[in-house]
Every structure is written in C-alpha cells, then in structure tokens.
C-alpha cells in the first residue's frame, strides 16, 4: 500500500503544481465567474411570482452578451480538464524512461494506474466543487436570495454528475495514453473524439432523424415526437448529451423529462406548463444517464487497466 499512497501523493502534487493546471484552473474560474455574473444581471427578467427555484435559475439563465449558461460552459470545459488530466498519464512515464524504473520498485503494477486515476479524480473533484461553491457564493451575494434545502441537494447532485462526466473524459484520455506511445497522439485522439461527440454527433443525429421521419410545418405532434425520439437516441451515444440531459433535469425541476428545445417549445405552446418535480423523481429520471456515464467511465478504465497490466516492458 505504501507504493500506492506514494504515487497518489506525488501525482496530486504534480497536478496542483504544474503550469498546465494553474492555467486551466484560472480559465475555468474566470469563465465560471463571468457566466454567473451575467446570469445574475439578467435573472430578474424571467422571474414571476410563481417561480419556485430562484437560486437554481442562476445556473440556467444566460445573458445576451454571453450566451452561455453555467452548465453549458461546464460541459465545454470539463472534457478539456479531464483530457488534460489523463492524456499523458502512462505514455509520458514510458517516454521519459521513468516507467521501468518505477516498476522495478516494490509495488504492484496496478498501483501505478490506480493511483494516477484516483489522483486525477480528486483533482477534478476539487476543481468542480470549488468552482460551484465559488459561483454559488458569488450568486448569493449578487441576487440576495438564499437557496433552499432542495436547491442545495440538487446542486450536490449536479456536482456529482459533473465529476462523473469529467471522470469519463479522463479515463478515455488515460485509455489513449496507454495505447498510444506519443503524448501528442493521445492528446489529439482524445480531442478529436471530444469534438466529434460534442459538435458533429448532434448534426449527424439530426440528419438521420430527418431522413428517417421527415418533418415539415404541417407535421403532427406524433411525427414530431418520433423524429425527436430518433434524434435523441442517436445523440445519446455522446456522453455530452447524457450530461446535458442530466443537468437539465437536475437544475430545471419544471422539466419532466429531458427534452430538446423543440419539444419544450411545443409543450409550452400547448399550454402544458408542468409543475416542478420533486427531487426524488428528478433523480429517478436522470438515473439512466448517470449509470450510462459511470459505465462508460468504468469501461474505459477497465480496458486501460487490462492493457497496462499485460503490457510487456521491452528492452527497446
């Protein structure tokens, strides 16, 4: 166990002292503060007497100057942080000649990858908890409305989902770092996959849904729903979609199920503004998304673990 703790301590110290993470932390803090600042300024416009979760609105509204809500910006930055934490975990050790020296010390080989993963996870958790705490505190001062108990619990759930989302990207990057020998390749592969899942998958899903169930202005609600169902099914391949849906349900209790803007418009247009769901129901709804994210993370980690354990240390 001494080996595991030693590696864990060193990795954690590395993360917090490296320039890479100081830059990332600053970037994330700055962007987070900016979104909440804009949100706090525009929050008044959307609030009516019946609005129940005022504090949570802080996290979902966006201003005209900065069309990013806090979760949207997090869903953009968390993958970058996760990839930065993992992309060179194993191959940089190998390239620098540290790996064979490290593995000749009396420790189990899996301690190396376990400790690295755990250290990344802890770093990620500290980053996300601190940014949410920071913007909550700032929002509290700016709008002066304290969160109620349920809002706090929902924020905790939001933090948890965000950490799992980051863990997925980190384990994906670790996976690439085990398979690719060069750090540049593993970084590029992770970023390419991220861009594909984040930007292009939605477009592909839209095209496929429209070709399978074409919609036009005269389409019935049933056809619209079917079209939307296909679109969601395809875009759920992307962990970003899973995260987005989970966050939507957790931070917008008024929303029954995760649904696209299109569906929301039609629901609101039909005058079916639903009452807010209790927290337990929201959690039940996001359960598939959460387990999906956790399973993907575990899968990536398991594959990289197996590959790392079976890897031969060769002389060249």
């Amino acid at each position, binding site marked *: 166990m001494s*080996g595991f703790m030693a590696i864990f*301590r060193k990795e954690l110290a590395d993360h917090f002292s490296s320039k890479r993470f100081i830059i990332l932390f600053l970037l994330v803090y700055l962007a987070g503060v900016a979104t909440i600042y804009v949100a706090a300024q525009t929050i008044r416009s959307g609030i009516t007497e019946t609005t129940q979760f005022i504090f949570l609105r802080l996290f979902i509204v966006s201003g005209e100057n900065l069309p990013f809500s806090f979760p949207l910006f997090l869903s953009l930055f968390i993958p970058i942080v996760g990839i930065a934490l993992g992309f060179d975990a194993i191959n940089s050790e190998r390239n*620098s*000649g540290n790996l*064979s*020296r490290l593995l*000749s*010390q009396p*420790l189990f080989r899996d301690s190396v990858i376990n400790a690295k993963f755990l250290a990344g996870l802890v770093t990620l958790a500290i980053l996300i908890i601190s940014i949410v705490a920071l913007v909550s505190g700032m929002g509290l001062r700016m709008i002066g409305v304290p969160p109620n108990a349920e809002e706090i619990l929902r924020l905790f759930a939001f933090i948890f989902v965000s950490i799992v989302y980051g863990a997925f990207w980190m384990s994906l990057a670790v996976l690439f770092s085990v398979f690719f020998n060069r750090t540049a390749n593993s970084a590029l592969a992770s970023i390419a996959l991220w861009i594909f899942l984040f930007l292009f998958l939605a477009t592909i899903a839209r095209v496929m849904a429209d070709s399978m169930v074409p919609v036009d202005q005269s389409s019935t609600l049933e056809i619209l729903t079917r079209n939307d169902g296909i679109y969601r099914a395809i875009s759920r391949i992307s962990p970003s979609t899973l995260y987005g849906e989970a966050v939507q349900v957790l931070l917008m209790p008024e929303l029954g199920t995760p649904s696209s803007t299109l569906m929301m418009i039609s629901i609101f247009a039909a005058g079916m503004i639903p009452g807010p769901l209790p927290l337990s129901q929201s959690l039940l709804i996001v359960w598939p998304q959460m387990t999906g994210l956790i399973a993907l993370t575990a899968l990536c980690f398991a594959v990289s673990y197996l590959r790392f354990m079976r890897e031969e240390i060769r*002389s060249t």
Partner: protein
Amino acid sequence: MDQQKVIETKDLTKRYRNFAAVDKLNLCIGEGEVFGFLGPNGAGKTTTILMLLGLTEPTSGTARVYGHDPAREPLKVKRIVGYLPEKVGFYEDLTASENLEYTASLNGIPWSEVPNKIEEALRSVGLHDVGRKRVGEFSHGMKQRLGIADVMIKDPKVAFLDEPTSGIDPEGTEHILALIKGMARNKVTVVLSSHQLHQVQKVCTQVGIMTKGRLVAQGPVDRLGREALRGGKYRIEVQVSRVAPALVDALKRVPGVIDVESSGDLLLIGCNEDLRPKIARTIVDSDCLLVQMKIEEYGLEEIYMKYFRES
C-alpha cells in the same frame, strides 16, 4: 562454489513471436561478484535483466534471485534489487533530491531516515551540491550518476545496471566504474551489461559473453582471454613471392610459432611473441623473396570480436 548463489537461471528463454531474444540461458552468479554482461546490441542482455527483475515474463525456463522466482514473487525480488535502466529517466520538473525522495517513499523507507539517505547517496555519486537543482538541467552523465544514487538509496543486495557507461565521456565513465567498485566493496552483487568491453574488464570479476540470446562464454576475464588467445597473441602477416610447402614447414619449425596458414601469396603466422626477425631469416634462407611483413597484436576487443564472430 562456496559462495551463495545470488542469481541462477535454468534454460531461461524469451521468445518474441518467431525470434528468441534469450535462448536457454544458464547463468550462475555468486554473492559479491561484479558480473559483466557483454554482447552486441540486441544480444538479449536487457531482456535477461528484465526477466530477472520480473518486469518481463520468461517464455520458458526458470530464474531465481536469492531463491525467489521473479515471475511469481516480483515484490520480494524488487525489494532486494536495484535497477538502472539503459535510458534512465527522472521527473524533469523535480529536483534530484525530490526524485530520490520519491523512490525512497515507494520503497517504504521511514521518513526519519530519508534525508540522511538522500544526502549520503548524493554525496557518494558527487551530486550533493546540485541536489536542489531540477533534473531537467542535468547532463546525461549526471543523470546516469543520479540513477546509481537511485539504486543505492534502497540498499539493494543486487544491482542491475544496464549500459551504465554508454554515451558518457571518459572521465564520467571512470567515476561510474569507481562507484560500481564501491558497491561491490559493500557486498552488493552487481550485474552490469555493456558493449564497451575494455571498461567492463576493469571492474568485473566475472564476465558472460552473449550473442543472439545465447551465452557463448562465461568466466573470469583473464581466463576467457587465454581461451580466446589459443591461436597466439600476435599475428604476423607475410607476403612472399611464392609459397612453397617447404617454407611452411620451415616456418612451423621456428620456436614460438603456433600455427601457419597460407592463402595465395600470404602467410598468416600465429605466435606469442614478436618473431619477425626469425621469420624474416627463415624466409630469406629458403628460396622465396620476402615482399612485406605486418604484425598485429590482439587486444581485448579482438578477443571479444572473436567470440561474437564465432556464434
């Protein structure tokens, strides 16, 4: 052998797909020896070391380090061995002391002893005044010496040093060889691999010569030298106008000549001392004309080359 056997291998074999990196290696190294693994690049020296460390699994055969099987009890082996890889690397952002501290913590050395041990190890390799410098600023030779400090900090019973002197200037090499001798004085069994033969010869009590995965010779340096020199220490090449059988016979009768080979108008004469004057006389006494004569002395390099060529 009255010494305890520290390392013993039986038919140790490692195959990569269709090529045998190490082929039925039988090795026996006693306590306190400095064993030099010699051989050209790709002879299987590093693969053997990796198998003895438990970093690579043998395809067949067994290895024992102090009675432990590295493939089955890797932790027991790794606790008592130190390893300096060929391309040793350190965390470049950390200082030399911090790198050693990390190794110490991985080995579970109590915190109270760590600063003293680091100080001691750095001092013995001559890096104590740069202990607080980042390793990124170190030269190759300094990194190599830090690597030896890294091995020494865990007080190993066996040290595997893979090419410890490759790419290092003569002065640095001397320093490293002195460190290896120092380790041997402290009863550490040292296994070092190298292709720089004359350096190894200065520190090793035993050498093993490996080519293409096989151990072609093992023993003390001087004995191997004698065996290799059966054909004589000197080789005299003589060009004559025409080679007559009578001349060859006459040359063979010259005292000190070990053997005579002829090819074309060349005669190759092996002997243990410089017999040029006598040979010249013998040739002149016969009916042949002496065209030219050259002498070559066999050095260690040639001895090893002879082994490498034979396999």
